[in-house]
């Protein structure tokens, strides 16, 4: 058998989901060490990383001991409990300005889903009857402004924009003036995607942040880091560096409508202390949900 056939054969098993696989383990076995090993591997396969997977298994083990659980079938419940406990260590509510417009800055690496999430968030708040304004502060990527304009059209919302190549901080400046003049409740600011190891681009983001804070005291009220749900261990690095530079206040996990589990948010919440606030479940304007720790944990653990 060739090299690749070997691998392929080994991988065939992974077609069955984490839970289906664990389900068999849970049904057929007493609570022994091998059950916990399988659980750890399932957690790793959900992108939680080795350390968090290990920590979670220890939490489940402690819960099993406390509840005198002897049967593996009772484990899924405990897994959900342990995971949702870890995920609700932080407060997932959005923060709003007490007075005047609330400014939300959307940040993240390239292609994570920032612009799309802005469109969805605009729709969410417009439906609640809020006055929403969009700021096209990604002046770098080809047709990023047109993309946000298309979203503005779709959800019926104004977009403050300059032209490609303009200073993004100047767009934010204008958006704040416009937001005040028009009595906007919420200003949603798009920014260009940037990889966290690009220091000059991170410095540009810090400048955008500074201009917002200066022109609208107390803002940005939210800095949302958008993380692609298919992201692996690099996501933790993203959270760490973006937090250092612009004091991230919440996470949006996107693309959870696929088969990725988005487990990287567990170490982000746990180690970086940043709460998840929203999850993205598709490309349509309704495909955004406020984060619910228990629902998320159940989605990861159960079929």
């Amino acid at each position: 058998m060739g090299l690749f056939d070997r691998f392929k054969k080994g991988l065939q098993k992974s077609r069955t989901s984490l839970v289906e696989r664990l389900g068999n383990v849970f049904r057929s076995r007493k609570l022994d060490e091998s059950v916990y090993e399988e659980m750890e591997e399932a957690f790793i396969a959900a992108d939680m990383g080795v350390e968090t997977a290990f920590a979670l298994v220890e939490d489940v083990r402690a819960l099993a001991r406390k509840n005198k659980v002897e049967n593996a079938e009772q484990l899924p419940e405990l897994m959900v409990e342990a995971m949702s406990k870890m995920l609700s260590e932080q407060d997932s509510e959005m923060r709003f300005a007490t007075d005047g417009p609330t400014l939300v800055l959307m940040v993240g690496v390239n292609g994570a889903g920032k612009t799309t999430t802005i469109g969805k968030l605009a729709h969410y708040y417009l439906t609640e009857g809020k006055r929403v304004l969009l700021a096209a502060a990604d002046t770098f990527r080809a047709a990023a402004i047109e993309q946000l304009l298309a979203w503005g059209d779709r959800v019926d919302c104004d977009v403050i924009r300059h032209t490609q190549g303009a200073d993004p901080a100047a767009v934010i400046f204008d958006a704040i003036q416009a937001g005040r003049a028009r009595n906007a409740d919420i200003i949603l600011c798009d920014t260009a995607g940037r990889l966290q190891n690009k220091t000059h681009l991170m410095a540009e983001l810090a400048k955008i942040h500074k201009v917002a804070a200066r022109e609208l005291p107390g803002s940005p009220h939210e800095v949302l880091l958008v993380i692609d749900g298919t992201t692996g261990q690099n996501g933790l690095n993203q959270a760490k560096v973006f937090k250092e530079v612009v004091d991230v206040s919440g996470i949006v996990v996107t693309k959870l409508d696929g088969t990725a589990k988005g487990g990287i948010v567990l170490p982000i919440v746990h180690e970086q202390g940043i709460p998840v606030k929203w999850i993205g479940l598709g490309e349509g304007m309704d495909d955004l949900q406020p984060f619910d720790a228990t629902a998320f944990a159940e989605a990861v653990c159960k079929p």
Partner: protein
Amino acid sequence: MLEGLSSSLQKALGKLRSKGKLTESDVQEAMREVRLALLAADVNVKVVRDFVARVRERAVGQDVQKSLTPGQQVIKIVYEELTELMGGTQARIQMAAKPPTVIMLVGLQGAGKTTAIAKLGLAFRQHQHRPLLVAADVYRPAAIDQLHVLGRQVDIPVFDMGTETNPVDIVRNGMAEAERQGADVVLVDTAGRLHIDDALMTELEDMKSTIEPSEVLLVVDAMTGQDAVHVAETFHERLGVTGVILTKLDGDARGGAALTVRAVTGCAIKYVGLGEKIEPLEPFHPDRLASRILGMGDVLSLIERA
């Protein structure tokens, strides 16, 4: 993170004493650390398991080179296996016997397809080809605008039919347009889609059978985690992927997904994307990615000198 892992790995390997031949327990201990390094680099757990088993088998009983410690010897084997696994077949674009050469780029949303199209186009143009870019993403807002902006930047014509025509018709007409213009390379930008979206995957199959491309390149984000296995498997099953483009390697992700994708599809990684600026795509170097995935630059340079 990188440094941390590398040093913990080296510490574990340092424990191995020089004994002439690698024993089972030597290798066992080293492979435990290798496993952690691979998982931290996002190589899929199953791939890791198979890989570790394979290398362990190969390593036990091997002679330790004079200039290396047993630990370094194990790393040498791991590194060689990784490099071999990701290299192998020659990573060149398959040109059609009768022009035009048609290349389709496919992948998940936001992976970097449209950017890669422009970069590929630029490379072809610089080699005296006459490419045509075909805008077959009718779903993503302003996807067509994006391709036009990029096309202007690299001075390559873009064919589009707006967003109201279905992609199969667009590519069919794109082929006719290529003939009319005398283009010898046709690069098709497709919409990002989930591998489990059956309707959209069928659409890709239909596009493929309509234009019979020489290459179907799967575009994969270097930051992808464990799920790369499902993505690669499904795209390959339905489309017969012929190669991979690994994007965003200018970041600090270790890129273990590449190993996963290579292992499941058997397809070569043909190019890597190293930035947002439109420059020609870079060729892929298996040895560089192998050392990046392992995160042990210093050990490896030592081995190379041995």
